[in-house]
């Protein structure tokens, strides 16, 4: 069963609907008890970093998530701020993240933009996987995903980057280390490409 963590932000229902249509067992979970049978975990998210961390800490599920992810190495997919929470810290907030990645979340630096570039980074952009297969199986160069963010995930190790996206320079639109997966874009809101990615995560 894939556990879709419901801590009060992010589109848990849209993710659940996609898995239901795919015939893949997934459950929206609100409590540590429900989480215990999770084979995989999805951490969705829309919101500011501190608010997201606060909601997750208040949900009572944090310890169980940490145990499943760090102790039992269950695959986890963080989406948008759910990905950013896997970093150690964020320029958007004061609270620490999970720190699963040696990474920080930074704001796009407007002063470095060479042409008029808008913030937030909003809309459909290309995602260039560094390796085929895994999370990006069957997703070719025509695949596109929906982004909505002003902060990006900056891993210290380039080896953690699974895919790049260009927004006045490349940034890590997807990361992976072992059982940890993150995507900055919203697969649950990215039509057939997002459905394919969620399918891929289920089949890992």
């Amino acid at each position: 069963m894939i556990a879709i963590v419901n801590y009060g932000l992010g589109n848990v229902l849209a993710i659940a609907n996609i898995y239901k249509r795919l015939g893949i067992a997934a459950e929206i979970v609100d409590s540590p008890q429900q989480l215990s049978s999770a084979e995989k975990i999805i951490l969705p998210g829309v919101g500011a970093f501190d608010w997201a961390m606060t909601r997750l800490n208040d949900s009572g599920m944090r310890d169980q998530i940490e145990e499943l992810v760090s102790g039992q190495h269950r695959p986890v997919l963080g989406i948008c701020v759910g990905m950013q929470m896997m970093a150690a810290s964020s320029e958007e907030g004061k609270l620490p993240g999970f720190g699963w990645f040696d990474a920080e979340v930074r704001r796009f630096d407007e002063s470095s933009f060479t042409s008029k570039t808008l913030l937030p980074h909003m809309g459909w952009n290309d995602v260039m996987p560094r390796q085929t297969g895994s999370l990006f199986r069957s997703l070719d160069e025509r695949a596109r995903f929906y982004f909505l963010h002003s902060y990006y995930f900056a891993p210290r190790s380039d080896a953690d980057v699974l895919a790049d996206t260009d927004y006045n320079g490349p940034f890590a639109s997807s990361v992976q280390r072992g059982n940890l997966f993150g995507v900055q874009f919203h697969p649950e809101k990215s039509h057939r490409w997002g459905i394919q990615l969620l399918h891929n995560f289920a089949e890992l």
Partner: protein
Amino acid sequence: MLRPRIIPCLLIKGGGLVKTVNFRTPKYVGDPINAVRIFNEKEVDELMVVDIDATVEQREPNYALIKNLAAECRMPLCYGGGVTSVEQFQRLVSLGVEKVAISAAAVANPNLVSEAASKVGGQSVVVVMDVRKGPQGYTIWTHNAGKATELEPVAFARRMQDLGAGEVVVNSIDRDGVMKGYDYDLATRVREATSVPLTIMGGAGSLNDIAELVRMFGVIGVAAGSLFVFKGVYRAVLINYPSPTQKDEIADTAQVAVQAR
């Protein structure tokens, strides 16, 4: 390459979808969930849904309907109508809405923008300006164009950006439902004064009108109501949207626009 966003805007009144002309004479065009399903199939870039009764009736958003819409949408959803508090922003985001739009509330209480941005993040805070052109220039109206303000839209858009809004929607009251093209002059003025994503709405009569905005501004949000729900001179209700090829052609003009800048 980031692409321009082509956005159907759906108006909700009494639980059904309607389309207006100059913000008046709402005509019933169908069921919202059904419309979302069709737009899913057409792989639309984003969807905007505005409850046009909520603010006027001073009531809460219809959370049950919004939850169903957000769950059904396989594209990002922006909801507007009746939102006046940070708690409502949070509740809407928790229901799965990616972006929450305010209009009258941003006029009455501009600090709501920064307060909401600190919770849900600026990327999810959208300010809609309903604009009418008068003898003294452009001004913002609220309550379905029933209430005038003294506010000038270019300065207001800039102020909303400074307060942390992640997107500004410029909606022309004069052109709503008229299908004779966007107000390109107004769009230019707001674009030049801001650096947040913009969406232009009001007046689209053909894909050429959309292409024209993209040619002028490159990456921009282009919203339309009538164009995507009516077909033909008799305005028969038929939900439609550009094909992937048509969209690619429009996006290609965006790249040219960027390179020319």
